[in-house]
């Protein structure tokens, strides 16, 4: 295998050994992704297609490689994101879009009468607080992200449905979680109290 500087130089368009370097890189990525993506999200996939997309991205992004990791580690990181994103898109194709419907004002309702969690009476107060915090502390966007995430959508799947980006979706979900945790603390419930509701 090449050294890191060799990889970058050999993959540049003007280099005489570029095709050989691409062939070797393709083989390495194919081996890694065939293993790592297998059985993930329960979807069939073409590792060859994913590697082809990844190679295009890697070759276009060579200048972004800073040499702070091995070249292959960096390239596999790029390829993994492309592969996982592709699998997630397929996974979301069969899912209900109900969580994104706005008719109910993006309400998130704790169905206490049907919930096994609330069979124990000492949990009911905690869940009442949770419902109040969802209703009062979260924004519509935060409720939308929370309920679509709980419906099984990934953050990039939510981003695709809502026309935003994964980072923005993550921040909405993260801020919602922190708001709920803070709200519980203000209501006298520690993180341990909240976790015990799962016991």
């Amino acid at each position, binding site marked *: 295998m090449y050294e890191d500087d060799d990889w970058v130089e050999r993959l540049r368009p003007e280099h005489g050994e570029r095709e050989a370097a691409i062939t070797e890189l393709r083989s390495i990525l194919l081996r890694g992704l065939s293993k790592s993506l297998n059985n993930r999200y329960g979807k069939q996939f073409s590792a060859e297609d994913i590697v082809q997309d990844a190679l295009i991205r890697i070759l276009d992004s060579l200048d972004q490689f800073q040499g702070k990791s091995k070249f292959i*580690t960096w390239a596999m990181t790029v390829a993994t994101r492309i592969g996982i994103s592709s699998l997630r898109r397929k996974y979301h194709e069969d899912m209900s879009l109900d969580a994104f419907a706005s008719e109910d004002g993006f309400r998130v309702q704790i169905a206490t009468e049907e919930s096994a969690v609330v069979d124990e009476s000492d949990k009911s107060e905690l869940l009442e607080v949770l419902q109040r915090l969802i209703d009062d502390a979260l924004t519509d966007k935060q409720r939308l992200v929370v309920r679509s995430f709980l419906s099984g959508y990934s*953050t990039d799947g939510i981003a695709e449905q809502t026309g935003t980006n994964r980072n923005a979706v993550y921040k909405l979900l993260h801020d919602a979680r922190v708001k709920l945790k803070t709200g519980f603390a203000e209501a006298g419930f520690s993180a341990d109290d909240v976790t015990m509701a799962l016991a």
Partner: protein
Amino acid sequence: MKLDANQIAELIQLTATARSEDTIGCNGCFELMDQFAQAELEGRDVPQALEVVRIHIEQCKCCRDEYDALLTALREIEA
């Protein structure tokens, strides 16, 4: 939308494990993930500057999935 028991349990888990100190988001995590993986693969202590990656991966299921897949792929090609 009415949450079922499993969704309520997941929401409670998400709430209880929330950490306000996650500062990098998914984009920042992606930019540093190769360095974080490299340190972990080589058995080195992760530099303090990369601890933000660990915090984000703990908080973000999507990035955690990607990181898990990345380590699997890298271990496969090292084998």
